């Protein structure tokens, strides 16, 4: 016996409806958009122009489309890495010619936290670059960019949604983008995969989901970790009480590409969920990582926050029969633990201690004392 999938899905998901609450949310946002249209257009233009200028400057200065220069496509300071980051980069890792396009994994770098990859797809018949070199091919375009030659060969030229690293399935995490390369018919795609927790040998295999219609398997390449001496953890400082919560630094990873921080915020019993999120939001969105005296702040590149203990996101029924969702503390007698995971562009010179915080009162000092390499620590 079979029934159309749509009927079964609709029947099971009957509770999911575009109800008045959702419609009203869309209407409200649409109305705000109308009021701000002119102002936003003006502002957006100014910001875009600034970004274009800065990106163009970055490309002009480097004259390259390497892994780190490409990171500046999103925000110019994203390309900021320390010189020793170059020692992690592996180049010209793999290539394959399909009927219409050539695919080449140009660069990859592993730093214990991410595997970052840049690969190019080139239309061999092209007689000009796809667009002005450096132009983003996938975001904020009036019309979808169609890479016909790549589609003819069934090559995924935009971002990849999985990979196998050392035989383990991994997912992309954070930003990803595709830009027009400097060569005729060339698209270059940059993507980073979350490899945290993988225990990799010095040399490992990477399988990317790049394959043509008739090729037997995905594109594989082997790479070594490179010089990991510059990737290490710091000794976490003692926990610090700040008002009604404690900040506990769980991990600080120093990489020449980024500084990665994982911190827990252990909030006292009795603090309502809204206040808990306000605390977490400040550490997630506003915290800076600077020298001990607050100078030389490192620039933020990614972040995140969420509850990891004693607070759930639950559905509630409203008196009118509709529903909503809210944060709910599981045991009011116990503290709630939030987790924040900001990442920063590395400084030119590491300080004797980092000052991690978002105000004069809300900060913690992290002495620059090496623990062990993340690799040896696993």
């Amino acid at each position, binding site marked *: *016996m079979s029934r159309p999938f749509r009927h079964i899905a609709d*029947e099971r998901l009957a509770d*999911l409806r575009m109800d008045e609450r*959702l419609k009203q949310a869309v209407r409200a946002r649409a109305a705000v958009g109308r009021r701000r249209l002119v102002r936003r257009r003006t502002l957006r233009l100014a910001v875009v122009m600034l970004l274009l200028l800065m990106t163009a400057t970055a490309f002009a200065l480097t004259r390259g489309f390497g892994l780190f220069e490409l990171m500046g496509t999103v925000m110019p300071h994203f390309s900021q890495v320390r010189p020793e980051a170059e020692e992690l980069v592996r180049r010209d890792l793999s290539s394959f010619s399909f009927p219409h396009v050539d695919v080449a994994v140009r660069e990859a770098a592993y730093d214990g936290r991410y595997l970052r990859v840049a690969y190019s797809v080139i239309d061999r018949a092209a007689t000009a670059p796809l667009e002005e070199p450096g132009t983003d091919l996938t975001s904020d375009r009036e019309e979808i960019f169609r890479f016909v030659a790549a589609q003819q060969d069934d090559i995924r030229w935009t971002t990849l949604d999985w990979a196998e690293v050392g035989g383990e399935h991994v997912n*992309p995490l954070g930003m990803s983008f595709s830009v027009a390369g400097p060569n005729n018919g060339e698209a270059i795609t940059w993507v980073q995969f979350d490899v945290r927790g993988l225990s990799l040998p010095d040399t490992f295999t990477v399988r990317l989901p790049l394959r043509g219609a008739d090729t037997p398997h995905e594109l594989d390449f082997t790479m070594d970790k490179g010089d990991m001496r510059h990737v290490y953890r710091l000794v976490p400082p003692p926990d610090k009480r700040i008002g009604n919560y404690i900040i506990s630094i769980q991990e600080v990873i120093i990489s020449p590409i980024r500084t990665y921080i994982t911190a827990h915020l252990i909030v006292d019993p009795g603090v309502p969920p809204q206040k808990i999120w306000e605390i977490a939001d400040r550490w997630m969105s506003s915290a800076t990582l600077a020298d001990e005296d607050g100078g030389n702040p490192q620039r933020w590149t990614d972040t995140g926050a969420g*509850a990891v203990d004693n607070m759930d996101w639950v559905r509630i029924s409203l008196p009118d029969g509709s529903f909503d969702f809210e944060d709910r503390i599981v045991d009011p007698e116990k503290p709630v633990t939030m987790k924040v995971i900001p990442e920063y562009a590395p400084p030119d010179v590491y300080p004797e201690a980092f000052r991690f915080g978002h105000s004069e009162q809300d900060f913690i000092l992290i002495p620059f004392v090496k623990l062990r390499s993340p690799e040896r620590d696993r």
Partner: protein
Amino acid sequence: MTRCDEFERESPDLRLERMMTQYGDGLLRLCFMMLSDRALAEDAVQEAFLRAYQALDHFRGDSSEYTWLTSIALNCCRSLRRKAWFRRVDLGVPLENIPAPGNVSDLADDTVLTAVMHLAPRYREPMLLHYYQGMLVKEIAALLQVPESTVSARLRRARIKLKEDLKEWYFDE
């Protein structure tokens, strides 16, 4: 009369209302099956209708309004899925927390949906677009920007994967 001519008679606000009423439930459920999370699905469908509203002037009627909205919703789901935090902490409301209706049929238990929602995105997307949204392989190929042969191959592989989980239920060709 073309579809564009018909739509031009509607004010943007009226058109937004009509689209939300006509397509809202289906798109919300599609987003849920893409994201496996109720709150994220609600975010995605809101964002999709907002983007559609802001882009009404640019809609040329090259595709159906339904396909156009599906395309926007799919992109919103992808954006949310790619956001860093989505993969880092599970804050969502999964299928088992969505109340099942009292008169749900035997076949509408969670087995089918769970199996589909556990497919990798590259299989789940064409699967849902074809079997839930009712789109043709050609339309899916245009939407996903891949050849039709790729869509067909992914649908075939998805069916093979599902067959193991759904021995008493199958997708009609």
